[in-house]
Each structure stands twice: as C-alpha cells, then as structure tokens.
C-alpha cells in the first residue's frame, strides 16, 4: 500500500512577497530541511508562498516543471502545507479523510486509536487534532510536506512519535520542509538546517 515514491526535487527560485524574500532553496525527496528563525521573521510566509496560498512572485519547480503549469489544487496535493493550528469543516473526524486506508496505516504509528475516526472533531484534544491533521494530508499524491511548527502544541512524548513518523515519511521518499523553534528537534531531524535572518536564508552547518 505504501510504496516508495520516485526521486524528485522541489526547487524554489527567488520567491518573494511584499516585505519578504527573495528566497531560494532546493529540497530533495527523502530529506528533511529545517528552517529556524525568530517569530515574525517570515517562516510561515515562506512555506505558504511555496504552497501558493498567498500572492507571491518568483518561481517554484517540481522536477523541472514550473508551478503555474499545475492547476492550483494539483500543486497543493503534491506540495502540501500543514499549518500550526488545524482547521476542520465537517462534524466527524472521518469526513475529513479522502484516503481511509492510508489513515488506518498511520493511526497506530501516531499513537492514535482507530475509534477516533468516528468521533466528532470537538471531542479531540488539541494534540490529537494536530496529529489527525497530519494524517489527513498524507495522500498517495504527496511529494513534499511543508510543516509549520506542527509539534509546538504537543506534549514531549507525542513530539517524539511525530518525529518518528516524519522519519518514516522520509524513508518513503517524501521531502520535508519543517519550520521549528526547537533546537533539539533540529538536531534530531535536520538533514540540512537554514536560519531565516532579515529576509535571508542562511545555511547552518
């Protein structure tokens, strides 16, 4: 069911929006690029620009194909942004999933019970919602995940669980771009680490 995906590359070239950028960056599938920086430095803005959720200029390529040649929804299915705070539109958790088979595969790995799928969204804790929001985004189309401080609302044990899942996603050849505040997390996950300082991405060794 979970197959290894093809090698692919996401390249961001001189991407900018009002007051932010230009940023350039290259991510390969299977790697985990972590971005740190002070609050308000524009880390979220950067991720949202890549997912084309806010107006921006510059170019992003997925395996050499320019972003504008994809329909917006197609692009976001392959390069998916997950916000720090999850949004829910239907009553039950289940209704938010398109691929339930995928959900059943990941639930135990995220330390979540299958029964939670039938629960109402309001019954879930913040941490459970955040983990569910991750699983919801894992479709067979996803090539790159843009994760925006997704572990900030989680307890230390859940943080480790999520990190292990991120590593498994990498093994399946999904590329990760992660914004984090936690330096320990950077050490545990980053295959490369950038710092966002005054509108520049600086590579840290």
């Amino acid at each position, binding site marked *: 069911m979970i197959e290894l995906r093809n090698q692919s590359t996401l390249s961001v070239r001189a991407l900018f929006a009002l007051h932010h950028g230009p940023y350039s960056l290259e991510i390969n599938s299977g790697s985990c690029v972590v971005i740190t920086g002070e609050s308000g430095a524009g880390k979220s803005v950067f991720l949202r620009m890549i997912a084309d959720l806010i107006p921006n200029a510059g170019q992003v390529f997925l395996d050499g194909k320019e972003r504008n040649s994809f329909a917006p*929804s197609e692009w976001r299915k392959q390069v998916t942004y*997950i916000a720090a705070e999850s949004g829910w539109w239907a009553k039950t958790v289940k209704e938010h999933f398109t691929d339930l088979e995928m959900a059943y595969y990941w639930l135990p790995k995220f330390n979540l019970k299958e029964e939670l799928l039938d629960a109402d969204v309001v019954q879930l804790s913040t941490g459970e919602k955040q983990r569910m929001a991750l699983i919801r985004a894992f479709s067979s189309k996803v090539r790159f995940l843009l994760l925006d401080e997704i572990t900030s609302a989680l307890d230390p044990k859940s943080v480790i669980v999520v990190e292990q899942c991120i590593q498994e996603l990498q093994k399946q050849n999904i590329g990760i771009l992660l914004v984090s505040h936690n330096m320990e997390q950077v050490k545990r996950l980053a295959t490369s680490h950038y710092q966002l300082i005054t509108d520049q991405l600086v590579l840290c060794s």
Partner: protein
Amino acid sequence: MNGYIHLSFIDLSLAVSLLLLITVLSVILSIGIGRTVIIAAVRLVLQLLLVGFLLLKVFAVQSFWCSLLVVFVMMLAASREIVARLKSGVQWRWSLGISGTVTGIVTLIVSFVALNTALRPEPWYDAKYFIPLTGMILGNVMSAASLSLKGLLDMVQREQKVIEARLALGHTRRETFNPLVRQAVVMGIMPLINQMSAAGIVTLPGTMSGQILAGMNPFDAAKYQILLLIIISSAGIMAAIGVSFLAVLRLTDNRDRLRIDRLFK
C-alpha cells in the same frame, strides 16, 4: 377595484392621535420609547407623503426615462442599504459594486418579465405598475442580498483557518466555498420561504389585505398575491445566489487563494 375609500386628513390625524396616546402612555409608564416612536412616525408620514406626491407627478408625465430614473434612484438606495448593514471592516467600494450589480440586474430582469407576461399594462413601462412593482421586488432583493452577503462575509472571516486548511489540502475553490455559499443563500432566502409557506394560514400578505380593504374580490386578490409573491421570491433567491457567488469570486483569485484583502480592509 371600484370606489376605494378616500382618506381625508382628518382620518389620518385620528390614526396619529392613537400613536400619540401610546407615546403619552410610554412617558407615564416611563418605558422610554416615546422619542423613538415619534421620530419614526414623523419619518413615515413625511417620506410617504413626499413619495405619494412625487409618484403623482411621475404618473402624470408617463415617460419611460422618468420612471427609469426613479427606479435607478431606488436601486442605489437599496444597494447602499445592503452595504450599510455589513460590518465596518468591509471595503465599501467593492461591496457596493457587488450589491449594486446584483440588485440592478435582478430587479430589472424580474420586473421586465413580470410586466411583459403577467401584468401587461399598456405601455409595459406604465409608471403606475412599473414603479410599485419594482419597489416591491427591490425590497425583497435588498433583504435577501443583504442577509446572504453579510452571512457569507461573516463566515469567511470566522472560518479563515478552515478555508485555508482545505485549500492547502488541494481542495478546489469550488469544493471549499460551496458549503459556505449554500449556507449564505439559505440565510438570505429563509424569510422568503417562510413568507411563502405561511401565506394565508398565519398571515394575509400585505397586497392581498390591501386589495381586499380597497374593495377587491378576495379570490382575485389571492391570485394577484400569488403572482406577486412568486415574482418577489424569485427575485430574492436570484439576488441571494448572485451576491454570494460574486463575493466568493472577489475573495479568491486565479490560483485558488483566499484573498481576504480583496474585500476587507
């Protein structure tokens, strides 16, 4: 309609004295609504007498352009009213543009259809029919459009995070906004649906009551009322759908982004 009852100014002042009595009562019981009631009543009297006088002139002139000008002014007032009922954070230019476009198109289409099929006055733009009919349509278009637009904008503002989450997951603009549009349209047309379902059982609608009071046979008055209710409800539903779609169009762009900045300050 043969021989409707002529009201003299003495008849009117009798009705006014009833209101005055209530106001005095309000002062005695210190309910404190006297001022509000008097202001509203004075506005009612002045505005309606003025309109009655104006319409008298317009009916006498019997010119298409003159009637159209009156209708145009009414439409502007209705669109302004829709915008005035929105929250202060909304850009008035664009909301006026949306409500004005919908109000204008819907009202003109529906009154043109009604005048040329169901009512058929001679000529079709006869001010005696054109202006009151348009006024009635406008009133309903205004309330439906206003409720829908306000409902939609409130929802979008409140559920920004949800909308962005759906778009980020690769849902199309249509999938994402369809539930919101549906809810907004329902909010807008609810009063019309209620009015249609309750007509005759709970209330005798205004036109029918008016015409019976003026001496029309109740069955003919009922037919007349059915026609009018269907016309104004269609107009209201069209308006609710129109403003909701235009607002979503303005709130998104060609890359399916949520653009709160394009309608809110």
